């Protein structure tokens, strides 16, 4: 029964390292170590990020659904985040602006800095400053707001009023439709050299 490893044990950290290696390898191999490829999805000249990102989400959602179905993964035993509506909307919006300006998100900036991208290193410096700013202003600005609009552990199946399996199916269909749509858009947008 999952999780196979007791959280906090030495094996847990060893697995964190191994999973990290696989995560970093695939992100880099997919092209997430270049900011101009990453922001391509906002300008229509490169949808790699969108394809990789949603294929990964659908694959993992389907994988966990199957593991749960066969009794290998108990959804009660794995980490499912609590939904805080407005803090997530505001936090996500700030991150969206950060993506447009910085050209990276935290994970991709680590990959890019690892292969020598100095702009990614600058992004990481900014990331640390941003977290420090948050921690130092936590009590005065963020503490109360962060706790608001707590919707509990809310699943997309609850939101849509369907079974868990059907919610994964709907997500998969939307993802595939999006892939077809962006392929059409890509044909109309001039290539950008980078």
């Amino acid at each position, binding site marked *: 029964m999952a999780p196979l490893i007791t959280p906090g044990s030495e094996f847990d950290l060893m697995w964190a390292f191994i999973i990290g290696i696989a995560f970093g390898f695939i992100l880099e191999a997919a092209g997430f170590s270049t900011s101009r490829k990453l922001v391509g999805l906002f300008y229509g000249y490169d949808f790699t990020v969108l394809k990789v990102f949603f294929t990964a989400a659908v694959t993992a959602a389907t994988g966990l659904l199957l593991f749960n179905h066969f009794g290998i993964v108990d959804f009660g035993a794995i980490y499912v985040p609590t939904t805080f509506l407005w803090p997530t909307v505001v936090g996500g919006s*700030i991150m969206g602006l950060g993506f447009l300006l*910085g050209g990276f998100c935290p994970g991709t900036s680590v990959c890019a800095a690892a292969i020598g991208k100095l702009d990614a290193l600058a992004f990481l410096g900014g990331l640390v400053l941003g977290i420090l700013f948050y921690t130092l202003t936590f009590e005065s600005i963020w503490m109360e707001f962060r706790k608001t609009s707590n919707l509990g552990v809310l699943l997309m199946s609850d939101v849509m009023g369907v079974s868990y399996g059907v919610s994964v199916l709907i997500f998969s269909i939307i993802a595939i439709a999006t892939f077809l749509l962006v392929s059409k858009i890509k044909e109309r947008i001039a290539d950008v050299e980078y």
Partner: protein
Amino acid sequence: MSYTQQKYMNPYVAGVLLGLVITASFVITGQGTGASGAFKDIIAAGVVKFTPEFAESSAFFNHYVGAEHSPAKAWLVFEILGVIVGAILSGALANRIALKVEHSPKITSKTRIIMAIAGGVLFGLGSQLGRGCTSGAGLSGMAVMSASGFIAVGAIFGVGYAFAWVFKKYWV
């Protein structure tokens, strides 16, 4: 230098592999992958170690006081160390390792660095408020079909598309 860069992996193949890694992460350790949390853990450990009185008095840091939250026990810190190793391996195999500032020919390296720092600051702030970044809140949240993951991804990419025109001249 006659090395040629290898092509990137097919995005759908990469996506399936990435999805399998995230599935394995949940099955083996009970949690998905993340990134911003590792930096928060390192910062918290540093603040607790070097300014213990401040940490005690801070509403943010006081629950990091105590041995249980040392970075040596932090899952995400080890995962991020792995990400660095994995990215170097992939970059080395594809001849992509090189020191450079990557930017559009229309802007200078200096402009790019300033933008990168500003973007990092915003991501650092937003990821703390949003309880994780594209990876931890977004991808891992969507993997377990959590509304939170879909809201985070919707906000990140929604705002990205809504304001893309403002920053177009810096990228295209």
